[in-house]
């Protein structure tokens, strides 16, 4: 299975949201990384058929997804950033309703499995209107998986989830990620570092780099520094350098930063991670889980 984006462009009046986005995706988990406004949601909405691209196209094994219509939606699972539910429906009713819309076979069994997977069994009969943000996200994940999709699109799936739920989500994606194309948009690097096969870095609507987490980390190897400082010094350093993190460990406080040149005479090389890649490309620190 091969999903190809060919020179996809999207503009809203004067704003260019996506510019010449081209990539070929195969089975696996693909993380779409970028700050807010980078064009991640636009790209996902285009793939989901909710937005029409200004030019270019998307093909699945050579077939235009636009022309595939219902056949494409049949193999698609989508979790939008803004989840809209019918408040008066319970979780079970919501899943039953969408199972009917998606022609899911043996839906009762499937719904039961998914409710267990997302840990909503106990609250399955409660009205969705009374759910917390995290519970709604979990229901959204169950909905995206309902028709056992071949292409799974998750737009900011971990927003609003607590650390335990985040961990559960990572495990779910690891479990379901085989044999399908999973595209996961986020600006929380830690969510995807351990589960993604490759990362697509998107900035101002353009694909600026792509590769596996290891490949991307290798590109910033040698540019990552730890600078020992007092707590006060570290805080004032951060006021002038947005591209840095304070790390407290045994031996004191360190400022963790990415720089082409040695930023301080006391700085020492540190091991590069995906967060450093993010810092390097986007010039800002990612939101921590």
């Amino acid at each position, binding site marked *: 299975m091969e999903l190809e984006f060919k020179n996809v462009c999207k503009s809203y009046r004067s704003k260019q949201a996506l510019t010449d986005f081209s990539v070929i995706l195969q089975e696996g988990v693909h993380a779409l990384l970028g700050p807010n406004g980078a064009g991640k949601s636009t790209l996902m909405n285009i793939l989901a*058929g*909710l937005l029409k691209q200004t030019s270019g196209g998307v093909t699945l094994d050579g077939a235009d997804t636009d022309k595939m219509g219902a056949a494409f939606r049949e193999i698609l699972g989508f979790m939008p950033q803004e989840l*809209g*539910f019918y408040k008066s429906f319970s979780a079970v009713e919501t899943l039953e309703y969408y199972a*009917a*819309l*998606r*022609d899911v076979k043996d839906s009762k069994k499937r719904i039961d499995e998914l409710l267990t997977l997302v840990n909503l069994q106990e609250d399955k009969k409660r009205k969705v209107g009374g759910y917390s943000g995290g519970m709604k996200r979990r229901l959204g994940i169950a909905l995206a998986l309902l028709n056992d999709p071949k292409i799974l699109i998750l737009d900011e799936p971990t927003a609003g989830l607590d650390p335990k739920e985040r961990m559960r989500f990572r495990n779910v994606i690891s479990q379901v990620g085989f044999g399908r194309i999973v595209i996961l948009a986020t600006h929380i690097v830690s969510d995807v570092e351990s589960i993604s096969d490759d990362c697509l870095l998107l900035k101002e609507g353009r694909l600026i780099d792509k590769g596996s987490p290891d490949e991307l980390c290798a590109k910033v190897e040698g540019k990552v520094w730890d600078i020992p400082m007092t707590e006060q010094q570290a805080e004032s350093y951060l006021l002038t350098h947005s591209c840095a993190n304070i790390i407290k460990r045994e031996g004191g406080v360190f400022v963790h930063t990415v720089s082409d040149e040695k930023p301080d005479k006391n700085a020492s090389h540190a091991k590069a991670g995906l967060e450093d890649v993010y810092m390097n490309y986007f010039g800002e620190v990612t939101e921590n889980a």
Partner: protein
Amino acid sequence: MKYEYKKLFSSKLMLIMLALTFAYMVYLPVREVWGGIEENRKTVDAYENIIAKAQADNKTYGELYEEINDIFANGEAKPIYSDNAVNDVGGIMFAADKLQYVTTGFEADRKELVKGMIYQNVTEQQKESPDKYLIRANEKAISQYNRRIELEFENTGINSSGYYSSFNYSMWEYVMIALCVMMTVRLFTLEYTTSAYRLVNTSKRTVQSLFFKKYLAVLSIAALVLLIQAVFEIAFGIYAYGAKNFSLPLQQIAEFEYCPYILSIAGFYVIKYFVRLICYTAVISVTALIAVLIKRPLIVNITAIIISAGGLAANMALFVAIDKSEKSRSALISVYDRLRIFLPQSLLNLREYLKGFDCFSLFGFPCSRIVFCIALAVIISAACAVLGYIQSGKIRRAA
């Protein structure tokens, strides 16, 4: 469909609106006889006794009129049928008028009407440039009136003014229009107000494929409300006004003396509620189209209510104005008759279409106003529903 009903009635406003519709439906007729429903029933029973006795004794209407004189003979009122001379006089007058109408009046009046039309055609044909439409219309009317209708000396019950004002063309129609509009807006904008359209439109079946399910859900509720009203109207007619025999010809009711159609009272009710449903279908269709175009509930509600209730208000205002006006009556009637061709809301007042030969000139040929208005309402409904369906597919792409 069950999910569409759930979506519809998960809103408290919808439930309140539905309760209001039923409450108002009951309030109007009950108000007419409020506090006096038992008294009203007694009067109806008394009148029916007089009719039954007159039937048993084979009395003529002349003999019944004479009985009124008997009550007041020798300068003193002595009741015949009850202990109250006033009730007796009222009942005998009611029975005598009815008897006169069904035995001689109805047939004589219609013969006179046909004669007048034949004379008008002969006169018209003698002119240098005769009015062809008038001749055609008269010929059609003559063929319709030249049919024998057997009336019976019975109480139809429904020719009471209180009964008419409660179930015909009343303020309730506005409540019903508001209910139809609000239900339609709720169902057709819910996916957008909740943002659920993203999930629905990425499913195999999209918002577009739900269009007719939503449409049917609203229409079925409207039909159910109308059915309940029909049952209530008939039950109220039987209980409070003594209506019994619904197989009698519609012309049995003096108001429909010149109705050219062969129609029973039951048939009148069937057509009445059928055309009402057509009118509300048009309201639902127009609202659905506006809803898929605009998607914002408040704006759609206001727009659709202005369009739907505005048409009804114009219609009702003219109807009242005709009744009250003396000087410009014919001009107002002419405008009202035109509205009755084009406005689906006119169908809510079926009586006006059935009171006489009701045609207009369509390219010189007589065309029935009610048939044309029904056809137009159906075309409007179908066109709006199809356009709405197509448009709801386009929104999927542009959302």
